[in-house]
């Protein structure tokens, strides 16, 4: 605009630039939102910093997590040097991969050369069977690809609960509306009463995946499991959080259908990959921010962790008790429990156990299958105890 001092910028350009910077910072500020902000600015005073701030915050943000990022980006973008933040955020181009374990542990018939000769269905089946029970931490690169295919086929379904919605049924309470409709069709003559009954819906499943250093050899596989689990056909979505040194909600990142793309998105979004563990305070954070409001209520909470706790163990015990009171069932899957001679000695594990309904291993595909069955409410072994049950694969 001629005649104006060079310090004022064109509003539309500034908005687009701000939105681009926000997107780089991880806020999903799409074109529709940008359009809304331009509309909002037209109704306010674009010369006032406060008005610009609120116009952007009200239209570009979609959640409380976005607001923090928005504040930072806004301050930087409209600060003294508006160009400094327009660069992409320096994300580490981290690729999630399993720690390469020594191939020497490989059992017979799993090497690459033999894999080429495995043409008969039977051989392939038995190979898959071996793979299903192998400890994930000991897999070679080629086996890992096969395991990824196994994991991708997973479906995790919550235990059923009765919902408040009803459906026509042969028994149950009388459906007054349908009965009356039948009556009207019959010209007011009495007909047989129609019934309705409560529908059943799967419960929400909440996965807390430990991505700390001690779990690094399992984290990739467990997140793939979480990815497969979060893509279920109906019912409330499975919520997935990663815990390490901080709590990150990765449900949105896992929404992509392709597991590799989804895992890359997670790598970019979690800053605490292979760090330490603060289980207690993170379970507390989960309960404070999400769980107590309703996400954990009546849900099936699954903690995938080895129970190594750096922080205060009593805090973890207290928070697990809180989770246990909120959730329908608490399942703890510990990959280390698959090792022969395992006893839950990690201090965090011992503190958590009294408030865990099912304790299972999670070290192999077969063990994860069993976990999925437990979550769906199927008990494979009716004699198995309810609490502190260790399975050996």
């Amino acid at each position, binding site marked *: 605009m001629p005649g104006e001092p060079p310090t004022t910028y064109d509003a539309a350009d500034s908005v687009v630039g701000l939105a681009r910077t926000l997107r780089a910072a991880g806020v999903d500020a799409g074109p529709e939102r940008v359009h*809304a902000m331009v509309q909002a600015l037209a109704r*306010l005073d674009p010369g006032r910093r406060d008005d610009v701030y609120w116009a952007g915050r009200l239209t570009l943000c979609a*959640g409380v997590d976005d607001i923090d990022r928005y504040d930072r980006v806004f301050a930087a973008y409209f600060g003294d040097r508006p160009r400094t933040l327009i660069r992409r955020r320096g994300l580490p181009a981290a690729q999630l991969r399993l720690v390469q374990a020594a191939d020497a542990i490989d059992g017979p018939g799993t090497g690459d050369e033999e894999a080429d000769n495995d043409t008969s269905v039977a051989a392939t089946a038995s190979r898959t069977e071996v793979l299903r029970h192998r400890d994930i931490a000991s897999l070679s690169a080629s086996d890992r690809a096969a395991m990824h295919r196994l994991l991708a086929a997973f479906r995790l379904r919550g235990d059923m609960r009765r919902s408040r919605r009803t459906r026509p049924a042969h028994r149950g309470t009388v459906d*007054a509306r349908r009965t*009356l409709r039948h009556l009207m069709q019959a010209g007011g003559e009495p007909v047989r009463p129609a019934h309705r009954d409560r529908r059943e819906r799967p419960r929400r499943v909440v996965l807390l995946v430990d991505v700390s250093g001690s779990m690094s050899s399992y984290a990739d596989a467990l997140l793939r499991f979480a990815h497969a689990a979060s893509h279920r056909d109906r019912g409330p979505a499975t919520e997935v959080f990663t815990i390490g040194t901080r709590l990150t909600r990765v449900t949105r990142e896992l929404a992509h259908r392709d597991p590799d793309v989804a895992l890359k998105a997670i790598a970019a979004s979690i800053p605490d990959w292979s760090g330490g563990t603060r289980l207690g305070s993170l379970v507390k954070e989960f309960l*404070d921010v999400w769980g107590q409001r309703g996400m954990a209520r009546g849900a099936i909470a699954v903690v995938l962790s080895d129970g190594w706790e750096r922080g205060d163990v009593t805090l973890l015990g207290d928070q697990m008790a809180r989770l246990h009171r909120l959730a329908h069932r608490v399942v703890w899957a510990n990959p280390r429990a698959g090792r022969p001679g395992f006893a839950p000695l990690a201090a965090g594990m011992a503190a958590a156990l009294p408030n865990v309904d099912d304790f299972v291993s999670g070290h192999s595909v077969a063990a994860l299958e069993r976990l999925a069955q437990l979550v769906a409410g199927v008990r494979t072994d009716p004699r198995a105890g309810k609490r502190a049950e260790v399975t050996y694969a």
Partner: protein
Amino acid sequence: MTGPADLAAALDAQDYLADDGVATAAYLALTMHRPLFVEGDAGVGKTALAQALAGALEAPLIRLQCYEGIDAAQALYDWDFPRQLLHLRAAEAAGKGDDADKLEHELYSRRFLIARPLLQAIETDPCVLLVDEVDRADDEFEAFLLEVLSEFSVSIPELGTVRATNPPVVVVTSNRTREVHDALKRRCLYHWVEHPTFDREVAIVRRRFPTATARLVDEVATAVQQLRKGDLLKPPGVAETLDWTDALLALGATRLDEDTATRTLGAVLKYREDHERVEQQLGGLAGMLAGAANAW
């Protein structure tokens, strides 16, 4: 209304003290004809905003309380079957049951239609529609709500399409028990309501209870602000502050001392663990109140 400041003044007249963010959000919702999606901790005044907005606009407030299992028949419209049936029998008794077409036309007329909140809001002009606690409804309902909120029209197969002449002002609240679908949020302006600052909280309590002494209000607000910092399971909201003041006034208190505070603490803290934590971490009520009393 020419700007957020005007609206803030109008809300003020309704005894709702809006800060810059709330006023701007509400102003934009009014002028952009977009629903306002309000999130925040329980008891920060999300529902009160819609009530005050209705008062400021001198429009009726139509409230749709969401719950699990809510469906179109409870949110949009329903046919009054018992009355239809009565009408049918009455027509038969009067010997007018021969003309089937005419009878059916009568049965599915507006007089037998029960308008539920969403249809009421579309038919009432002007009005404020409050969709309360949308996170409690299940996701199927969200998709349905999205459809109504984007078109502001309802097609009733037996009757035809009802369209709003002027879209109502819509306030959608959520306690964030689950993430509401992005498609719904995209249609809305989003506002996160924070707990009020000390000064604003004092002003809110004074406005509601003009008879309370200045000292009592100050001490209650100080105590509540401290409780919010105290890492509790359920930090008290403004609603709890008002409840607490109300309880203290009922006991005839003019200041907050340890005795009255202990007896009325149940109005602010609703968890046993929180009561314990106040004892342990905040040095007990006495310690907490000492800071507030020092100012006087």
